[in-house]
């Protein structure tokens, strides 16, 4: 059988991807056959090539069993009796398709990229602490792979109140889920309307999680990656709920363990309160006397209640500052400017964030 790989100059399929092209031997009819299915490096079936002596305007591709709605895409002639079809989106792995010429079925073929997709893992759940305040505002989930962009995340999450022995719903349902751009990190809000005192949801349903109760959150392995592979396992997180945190974070109470100059030993910051991991890592900097940011890396430990800063270059003697943007929050959404559950007046949405800082001196 003659195998040809169709060239699509307008597309981003480079010649080096061609080795992924996979020959499907479905010789269905003597006058025509599927010649090849072109896969990208990621294993996506972006086009098929076939030969046929039928009228080029008569072709239609259907999902197997579907008779009414053809797959959207473009047929084009590549050589005598040779055609290609490029679907609008890649054909789905594992699906069977049927190529028709009017009412005559020409071919049936299956998409099998042969690329083994790894199972995604739930790498981190923030906060990592197992004792949480009853006015906890949000939970972050970090995955090893981009996750599916269809369905609802909350369909894969069950919250069980171990104390009351019942399933509960604690998260805010949003049409536009709050993923990062890569679709590997999801932010789940505990319903803010239930956390803010005296709002209707708060009065009707009370706080989403309550003091003295133990909860288990289950993340189902049915939750799939963008490539359609389920989580490696079911994941759970159990935690006990303590009293609400109604205090603003205070930098004055932080303890600093300052290293000596001429070394790269880490600066240790003990916050004595678990903070919002994502906001903290984004909103903290070490600056020198000139206000220049010192290059280096921050690492969280002690359930996000302590940090280590390791400089990229050796410490030089001098006065430095730990600088934190006021938007950085504790687990209850209290930041350095205001409590979450409080009357708020903001004069100007454009106003620059307030920066809170603590000085320290590096000595020989």
């Amino acid at each position, binding site marked *: 059988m003659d195998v040809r790989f169709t060239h699509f100059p307008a597309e981003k399929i480079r010649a080096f991807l061609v080795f992924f092209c996979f020959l499907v031997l479905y010789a269905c009819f003597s006058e025509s056959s599927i010649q090849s299915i072109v896969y990208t490096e990621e294993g996506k079936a972006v086009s098929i090539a076939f030969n046929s002596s039928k009228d080029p305007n008569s072709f239609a*591709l*259907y*999902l197997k069993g*579907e008779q*009414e*709605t*053809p797959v*959207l895409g473009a047929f084009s002639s590549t050589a005598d009796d040779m055609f290609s079809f490029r*679907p*609008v*989106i890649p054909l*789905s792995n594992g*699906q069977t*398709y049927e190529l028709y010429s009017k009412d005559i079925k020409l071919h049936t073929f299956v998409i099998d990229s042969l690329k083994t997709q790894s199972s995604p893992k739930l790498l981190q759940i923030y906060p990592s602490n197992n004792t949480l305040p009853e006015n906890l*505002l*949000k939970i972050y989930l970090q995955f090893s792979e981009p996750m*599916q*962009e*269809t*369905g609802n995340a909350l369909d894969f999450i069950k919250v069980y109140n171990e104390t009351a022995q019942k399933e509960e719903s604690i998260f*805010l*349902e949003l*049409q536009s*889920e*709050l*993923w*990062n*751009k890569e*679709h590997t990190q999801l932010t789940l*809000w505990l319903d*803010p*309307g239930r956390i*803010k005192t*005296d*709002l*209707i*949801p708060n*009065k*009707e*349903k009370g706080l989403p999680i309550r003091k003295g109760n133990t909860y288990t959150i289950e993340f189902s392995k049915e939750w*799939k990656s*963008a*490539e*359609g592979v389920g989580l490696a396992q079911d994941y759970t997180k159990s935690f006990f709920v303590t009293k609400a945190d109604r205090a603003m974070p205070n930098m004055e109470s932080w303890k600093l363990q300052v290293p000596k100059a001429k070394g790269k030993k880490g600066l240790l910051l003990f916050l004595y309160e678990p903070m*919002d991991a*994502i*906001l903290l890592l*984004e909103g903290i*900097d070490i600056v020198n006397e000139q206000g220049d*940011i010192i290059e280096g890396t921050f690492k969280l430990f002690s359930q996000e209640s302590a940090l280590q800063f390791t400089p990229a270059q050796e410490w030089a003697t001098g006065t430095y500052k730990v600088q934190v943007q006021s938007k950085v*929050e504790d687990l209850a959404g209290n930041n350095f400017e205001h409590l*979450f559950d409080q*009357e*708020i*007046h903001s*004069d*100007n*949405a*454009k106003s*620059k964030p307030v920066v809170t800082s603590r000085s320290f001196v590096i000595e020989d």
Partner: protein
Amino acid sequence: MKKLIFLAAIGVVALFTISAVNNTENQLTKDFIFGDANIASISSLSFGPEGILFLGDSKQATVFALDTKDVVVNAEGAKINVGDFDAKIAASLGTTADQVRITDMAVNPISKNVYFSVNVTDGTPVLLRLKGEGFENVSLKEASYSKIALTDPIAVDAEDRRGRSQRVWAIADMKYHKGTIMVSGLSNKEFGSTFRSIPFPFKNTQDYASLEIYHAAHGKYETHAPIKTFDVINMEGKDYLMASYTCTPLVLFPMEELKGGKHLKGRTVAELGAGNSPLDMISFEKEGKPFFLMSNTNRAVMRLDYDTIANFKETLTEPVTDFGVATGVEYVSLPMVNVLQLDNLDASNVVYLQRTASGEMVLRTRPTKWM
């Protein structure tokens, strides 16, 4: 002779008119470029003038303006009744219903064609146009477009220097109104909301407004609550932004004051009860009277009368004492539940996407006289 002068005058007027029309067209699309728009996601759709469709890309925090060139005038839209709608959309993309997500729907006010934005499981965005019971793909790769990035109202200089991730502003709702595209967004990090208005054609300007609402139940003001959906309504000759918040208060802001980073206090006109989230809003006319419709996650479609809203002069400032009781302007619950998408089809019909009690997803039209 007089006739000749008259004809010449008509000719001149016609010429001016034609050139004016051409100028307008040029004005709107003169900065458009042709090629792959590189759209990463479509979370929101809204039609502007002359077949220009705005697409909200949450992943890139960008609004795209796409010239659909779909400008053949149709006074009336076709009657629509399509069953198994999600399965049909999926089939047209060569996949099954569980692999697609319909993120928004918009009707072109000129052609009355219905557009859908669809996400497939790996996140590839697709724009489809309904054609009979089938679909046409509207290419995002060979498109005439312009775009504007939604800049963060909060300075992020320090973050940028260290190459840390920018905030994701998930676009909650987006509407075009009189030369301006308005966008409400939700942050994936702080509990906060942004509301901005961007003049179209896009320049390097966007305006922020800090909107303050009064929670009747709460007895307190707050600025940070996110807006889920909004619409612009005209009452007594003035345009108002009607915003619906996550905690269901319905709040009015005068449009003329929404600029220059100004801090505005809204007039809370209704508390629509807890455990419910607004999904979509439209305005329509019935027997010459303007009404307003809102679909919800856990309640039926609500109809509000403009007159009732206009006559409700006070703002809710007394804390609500009865649990779950909606207060403020009166509304009518229509016998329509689980309406996922809602838009005006033409002057006397709406089109809606609904999950029926049997679980089937249907796309239907309905005369406004029955709304």
